[in-house]
């Protein structure tokens, strides 16, 4: 137990940035827009969050900046994919490059700077529960915000009128349009909010987790988030489980390195990526057997209103 609890707690802490990005992508894909550019969006958010925290001394303001920076850079993707109906895969790749380059160029002035980050805060009563307390309730506030977000999104997507509209647009945009919904507006809204959440994921990394800025510091987490959306079958709760699983591998690998395990760190680092492939394969096999998975039917299909007959 003494060994497992810190690892599980670390899994939650290091899974949280991936979780924010994954939740954002769930929203975006539910609306029918695939954003492969999360890696670039997260980096942009990480830079903005750190820079604003450094300038104002307030990590909360920094994270708000992360949100808006993430949404802002995603606007390019939204414009190309929604208005110009471009190929979403290629646009996403371009977004990764642009976000990476932009954050590297901007971040050159803050390399080596430090901030105080966000103090952790144990939730009274809940944190005293054996096992669950230390694993889930002795963290920084952004971890708790992510719990609330998961619960909120589960309710929002599946239980509200707004969520129904969102799913309609991703499932059958033509029918949604006939119902009088503006497919374009809804897709823009959720793509941008999704980008904003990915930005917060990046901001969590630089402001709360690492408390510094390093070029390319997301090191593949954005891509893992894209994969986790499929792993989580477009469901926020399952996405959270996936994110913590990945956080767990990361935490385990750091711990093994620290304990001087003879297994090479490079080889251990391949584990999360191999695991993504395995999980994705299992999910795809099940999908092939006709298990309904929740893939939005119009995912990455552009909608042109003039196409109506």
């Amino acid at each position, binding site marked *: 137990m003494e060994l497992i609890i810190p690892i599980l707690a670390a899994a939650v802490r290091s899974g949280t940035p991936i979780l924010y990005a994954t939740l954002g992508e769930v929203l975006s894909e539910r609306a029918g827009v695939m954003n492969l550019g999360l890696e670039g969006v997260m980096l942009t958010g990480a830079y903005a969050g750190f820079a604003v925290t450094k300038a104002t001394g307030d990590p909360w303001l920094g994270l708000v900046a992360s949100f808006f920076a993430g949404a802002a850079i995603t606007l390019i993707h939204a414009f190309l994919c929604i*208005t110009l109906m471009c190929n979403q895969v290629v646009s996403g790749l371009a977004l990764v490059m*642009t976000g990476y380059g932009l954050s590297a160029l901007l971040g050159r002035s803050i390399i080596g700077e430090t901030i105080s980050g966000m103090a952790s805060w144990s939730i009274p009563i809940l944190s005293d529960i054996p096992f669950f307390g230390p694993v889930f309730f002795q963290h920084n506030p952004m971890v708790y915000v992510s719990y609330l977000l998961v619960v909120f999104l589960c309710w929002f997507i599946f239980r509200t009128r707004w969520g129904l509209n969102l799913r309609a647009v991703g499932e059958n945009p033509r029918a949604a349009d006939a119902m009088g919904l503006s497919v374009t507006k809804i897709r823009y809204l959720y793509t941008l909010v999704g980008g904003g959440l990915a930005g917060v994921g990046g901001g969590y990394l630089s402001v709360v987790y690492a408390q510094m800025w390093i070029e390319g510091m997301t090191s593949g987490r954005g891509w893992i988030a894209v994969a986790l959306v499929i792993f989580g079958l477009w469901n926020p709760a399952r996405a959270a489980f996936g994110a913590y699983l990945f956080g767990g591998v990361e935490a385990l690998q750091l711990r093994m390195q620290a304990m001087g395990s003879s297994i090479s760190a*490079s080889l251990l680092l391949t584990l999360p990526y191999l695991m993504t492939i395995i999980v994705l394969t299992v999910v*795809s096999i099940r999908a092939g057997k006709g298990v309904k998975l929740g893939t939005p039917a119009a995912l990455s299909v552009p909608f042109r209103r003039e196409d109506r007959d």
Partner: protein
Amino acid sequence: MIRLKFEPRLDNPAWMNVMIPVAAVLTGLFAGGVLFAFLGVNPFRAYWAVLVGAFGSTYGLSEIVTKAIPITLTALAGLICYRMLIWNIGAEGQLCLGAIATVAVVRYFYVDSRIAMFALMFLAAALAGGVWGGVSGFLKAKWNVNETITTLMLNYVAINLSEYFIYGPWKDPMSMGFPFTPNFPPAARFWVFGSTRIHGGIFIALAITLIFQLLLKRSKWGYEIRVIGENPRAARYAGINIAKNILLVTFIGGAVAGLAGMSEMAGLHGRMSRGFSMDYGYTGIIVAWLARLSPIYVPLVAFLMGVLLVGGDTLQVVMGLPHASIKILQGLILFSMIGAETLSRFRIRIVRVGLRAKGEEN
């Protein structure tokens, strides 16, 4: 209220094939310039530095060609898959595997003959890259596993694998702790042009360009995979085996990217060191799109991308900007390219909504 209205173009004027990439590059560079200016970097100085770095010396020119070689190969690797709408973005990892296989051959199967070494390295690199790509193809063909994600994940696996060898079992004992493998013996090196760094890999790149051009534009198989890409349903009715072709293009693509790894090892570096892959796999994706998936244009576009990359080095040295700044330009050019492609497919009219008769609104 004003709205944009997209009407499909019925004609496809020939001038567009040239204009689109040119316009995309110019738009991307312009947008990048505006962004640089906004961030306090003088865009004229930056672009001038790029040009001087690239064309100001024979060294710059030779560096451009040196970079264009692997980029041509990784672009071709992606291109053959994109023609079938298989989103293989794994050239980076396949290149790594090709490099690992090349080093392994030199380490364990060394013979003192240039021809034998070339043949061995070629086969090993193509096979390793091909299998690495083929894994994603197999998963896609068999269970419809998303190939974008699997190829990408395998990139990270491959890079970590190469670092395992560089830091671990293959580390040069004479390297004083620096992470690289021992230098290749002369028989395992390519021939080099005079005093430049341009090496025999250029012939591999050009040969595969020609083969791909013939294969895709002239052969029945080239036609088949185009049909699969453009209309999978028609392809299925025509009795084309889609699963087999997915496996084939991912294997061939991987093999070509693997050769890029071999050419980098045996032609340029002569050993494997950390960060040797330089993101050529990702750069190849942009090049494939800028070439509009036509193999014959790939070397030219790869050369232009080489200009940008060599220029990026000068940006770093002369203006103190991070090398990754050049990624902004790459990204913006790619954005412009796909945007321009849409504009070529549609005529765009601006319509006033609400002021005209109701039927006009839609």
